[in-house]
């Protein structure tokens, strides 16, 4: 081994990790464009949620087939990554199978990785079949036209390639070990690749070595490419599921937040001693008053923006949404995808304009999400209940409705009638408050 290999390895590793770190910084900046919201309460319950829902995949198995297949890929992914640690050390220091001193435990590890790799291959192929051959409804939904559909397939192809490279790398390594090829010490157990290995039986030592090295390099390069693909893909959920479940709303799902800005106004209105013309104390005369509700991504809170980046477009929300089931335009998944797309657009605008957002005459409302979608929601919480990582499309829908009603007075006519009834006679229908107890004497 010459040092060129090690230097080359160090360079691609640094590039791969560095480029990813740069994008993570951008991701964090974009999420912080959202309004502040305090989610520092109940750390115990939050850690538990993260452990159960993200780490433990509790909500995934609500749909057993996709849930169990997903667990295979997830466990495989997490555990096989221990191998990546070895690959990185080997690559940097020119060693080979540095952890092999672990002996029997090492054999156990490599053996398990191989079995997991096969299970991952099995699950990923099942996923490809579900998406492209069985065409399960939520995967061929109009939300996924174009890039999102390709994105999903690319991720799966990628996994197939990575797992195949991993197994081929082991199969050739096993051959070389068997032939006492220099540098290839006897280490590891190869329950799967030992079966594959005979295909290389007649091959020259050097050819097998070239294949082994090629697979090894492509495997680690592939992992680095995949890591960098995350930022551009729905696949970010493998990382963001953890903070997302941690910061999710802990309240009963029926509890919608009370807007503090409104409370201040209402208290003023109801206080008979309030001076309506009084200037608020300590007010900044140049302050822009806070918008009621959300028109664009900056009006949402940072947890809602984190939600948008976390969404992996599985569509469980949409497939359980009563509005979507009955053919309305609303799709909770699309709400999340639109929020992310708009946030990315705003982020790029900031990048292009030296760190400040220059208005582009577009907003999340209307340019991405239409009022028709927003008004179709029954606030039934099915989407929130379904989401395997506790995303709340409903909170975004509600904030946008608030903008429509309080900033633009743009409620459907029938809702305006309902609201004026509430204002005038304390009921959503035009009945007199004085008649509220009439039922008592009716037959």
């Amino acid at each position, binding site marked *: 081994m010459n040092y060129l290999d090690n230097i080359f390895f160090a360079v691609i590793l640094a590039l791969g990790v560095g480029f990813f770190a740069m994008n993570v910084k951008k991701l964090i900046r974009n999420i912080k464009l959202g309004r502040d919201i305090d989610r520092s309460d109940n750390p115990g319950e939050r850690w538990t949620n993260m452990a159960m829902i993200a780490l433990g995949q509790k909500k995934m198995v609500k749909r057993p087939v996709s849930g169990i297949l997903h667990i295979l890929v997830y466990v495989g992914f997490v555990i096989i990554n221990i191998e990546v640690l070895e690959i990185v050390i080997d690559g940097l220091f020119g060693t080979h199978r540095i952890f092999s001193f672990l002996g029997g435990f090492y054999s156990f590890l490599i053996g398990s990785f191989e079995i997991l790799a096969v299970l991952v291959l099995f699950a990923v192929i099942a996923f490809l079949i579900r998406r492209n051959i069985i065409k399960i409804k939520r995967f061929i939904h109009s939300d996924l036209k174009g890039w999102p559909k390709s994105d999903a397939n690319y991720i799966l192809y990628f996994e197939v390639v990575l797992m195949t490279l991993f197994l081929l790398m082991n199969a050739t390594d096993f051959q070389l070990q068997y032939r006492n090829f220099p540098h290839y010490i006897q280490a590891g157990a190869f329950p799967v690749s030992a079966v594959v290995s005979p295909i290389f039986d007649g091959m020259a030592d050097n050819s097998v070595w070239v294949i082994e090295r090629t697979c090894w390099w492509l495997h680690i390069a592939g992992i680095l490419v995949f890591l960098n693909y995350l930022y551009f893909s729905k696949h970010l959920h493998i990382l963001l599921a953890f903070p997302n479940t941690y910061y999710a709303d802990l*309240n*009963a*799902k*029926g*509890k*919608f937040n*009370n807007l503090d800005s*409104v409370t201040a*106004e*209402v*208290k003023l*209105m*109801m206080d008979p001693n309030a001076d309506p013309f009084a200037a608020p104390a300590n007010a900044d005369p140049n302050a822009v008053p806070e918008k009621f*509700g959300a028109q664009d991504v900056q009006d949402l809170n940072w947890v809602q923006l984190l939600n948008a980046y976390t969404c992996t477009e599985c569509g469980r929300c949409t497939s*359980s949404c*009563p*509005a979507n*089931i*009955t*053919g*309305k*335009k*609303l799709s909770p998944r699309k709400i999340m995808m639109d929020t992310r797309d708009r946030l990315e657009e705003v982020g790029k605008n900031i990048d292009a304009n030296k760190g400040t957002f220059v208005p582009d005459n577009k907003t999340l409302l209307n340019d991405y999400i239409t009022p*028709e979608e927003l*008004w*179709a*929601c*029954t*606030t*039934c*919480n*099915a989407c*929130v*209940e379904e989401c395997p990582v506790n995303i709340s499309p409903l909170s975004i829908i509600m904030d946008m409705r*608030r*903008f*429509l*009603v*309080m900033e633009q007075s743009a*409620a*459907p006519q*029938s*809702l305006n009638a*309902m*609201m004026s009834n*509430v*204002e005038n006679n*304390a*009921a*959503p*229908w035009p*009945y007199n*408050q*004085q*008649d*509220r*107890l*009439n*039922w*008592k004497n009716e037959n």
Partner: protein
Amino acid sequence: MSEELKVPTMADFMAQGKSPEVLFWVGCSGSFDDRAKKITKAFVRLLNRAGVEFAVLGTEESCTGDPAKRAGNEFLFQMQAMMNIELLNAYEVKKIVTACPHCFNTIKNEYPGLGGSYEVVHHTQFLKSLLDDGRLTIEGGTFKGKKIVFHDPCYLGRANNIYEAPRELIQKLDAELVEMKRSRTNGLCCGAGGAQMFKDAEPGDKEINIERSEEALDTGSKIIAAACPFCNTMLTDGVKNKEKEAEVKVLDVAELIANAHDL
């Protein structure tokens, strides 16, 4: 049936210097909607039968603000909420029962942040506690062995995780409780929540209440139990749309129990 309903108001109690065990929050549907008024009366008969000292606000009650809030009008919601809270606090109300999951959710979850903290229970929970305490008994005769399917109201189920109280009541009737394909956490909305009750649906292939009613009818049950006045309206309309109203009844859980008593 002829027994006169005893429905004292908070004002009556106050005039006597007393306070009731619980305030019955009737809600707008329960006060004005012809179908929902029957549920209100059935529940009151049960309260009377169990000897519960309850009161209503009567003409002092007003909308909780739920439909305004879910429509996006936070101003109107908070105006309603604060007026109601002032009134409830003035009467020193401690415990509230309501037959409407929307009122229940709003008072329970959204009033505390505006200064109104009360123990709030849904009428199915309250009835269950009356049974558990032996203050009310159920004779299962009328419904013995009959199939009853229960529809989970979103604002009781998913919104507040109450799935069992109404089911336990139905089982106490010696009825055969059956479930729809989508029930409990997976329950399908009736289509009325989020202020949809007060507007037409957006264009689509189907009305949500028809989808849900079909699912309920598919169980073969002749009784669809609801626990929300809005769900009741939506499912009743759905059953009519399928021209099944002669055979299939949509009844509130309180009505089932009152019927069992022949009240």
